[in-house]
C-alpha cells in the first residue's frame, strides 16, 4: 500500500504565533505612543497660540493706554466718572477688558473675560404667567 505523501499545508507553529503576537504588540504600542505625542504636540501648539493671542491683545491695550496718556482721543474708549474703559479682542471668545483712572492713570482693571460676560445677556425666566 503506497502511502500517498500528500503535501500538507505548513501548519503555523507555536513560534510563528509568538512572532505574530510580538509584531502586533510592537505595532500597537508604537502607534499608541505616536498618537499620544501628536496629541501633546497639538496641545502645546494651542498653548503657544493662546499666549501669542494674549500678548497681541496686551500690546494693543498698551498702545491705547499710551495714546490716552499723551492726551489723544481714541475711538472705542468710553469715559464715565473719571474712568476710561476699553476692550481688545484676544480670541473669538475672550476679550481683554481695561479700566483706567483718568487722573492718575492707575490701572483699575486689566482682565481677560469671556465675550458673553462682556455683553451680559440675560435670559428671561418664565414666571408662570
Amino acid at each position, binding site marked *: 500500500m503506497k502511502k500517498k505523501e500528500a503535501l500538507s499545508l505548513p501548519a503555523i507553529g507555536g513560534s510563528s504565533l509568538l*512572532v505574530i503576537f510580538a*509584531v502586533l504588540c510592537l*505595532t500597537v504600542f*508604537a502607534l499608541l505612543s505616536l498618537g499620544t505625542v501628536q496629541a501633546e504636540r497639538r496641545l502645546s501648539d494651542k498653548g503657544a497660540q493662546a499666549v501669542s493671542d494674549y*500678548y*497681541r491683545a*496686551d500690546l494693543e491695550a498698551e498702545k491705547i*493706554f*499710551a*495714546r490716552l496718556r499723551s492726551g489723544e482721543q481714541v475711538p472705542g474708549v468710553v469715559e464715565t466718572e473719571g474712568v476710561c474703559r476699553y476692550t481688545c479682542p484676544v480670541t473669538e471668545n475672550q476679550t481683554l477688558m481695561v479700566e483706567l483712572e483718568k487722573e492718575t492713570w492707575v490701572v483699575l482693571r486689566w482682565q481677560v473675560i469671556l465675550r458673553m460676560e462682556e455683553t451680559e445677556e440675560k435670559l428671561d425666566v418664565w414666571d408662570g404667567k
Partner: protein
Amino acid sequence: MKNRASLTLMEMLIMVLVFSLSAAICLGLFAGADRLSEETVRQDRAVILAQNAAEALKAGAEPETAEDGLYLDIREVPSEIPGLKQAEITVFFEKEAIFTLETGWQEVAP
C-alpha cells in the same frame, strides 16, 4: 520528513524576516515619537521663557536670556507712540527660532 523540515525552516525564515521588518518600522515610529516629544517640551519651555522675559520687561527688571540650551534675543522695536516701549522677544534653539512674542509697556518717567 525532509519536506516537512524544509517547510518548517522556510516558515521560520519568513517569520524572522517579518519580525525584523516590523521591528525596524516600529523602532522608526518610536524614534519619531521621541523626537516629536522633545520638540514639544522645547516649545513649552520656550513659551514660558518668552512669557517670563515679557513680564520682566514690563516690570522694569532684567530678563533671563538663556536657559537649558534655549536662548533669547530681545530686540527693541521703535514705537511711534510717545510713552510706549516695545520689544520683540525671540527664543532660539541652535540658531532656529522656536517662538516669538511682541510686548509693550508704558515708559515710566524717571
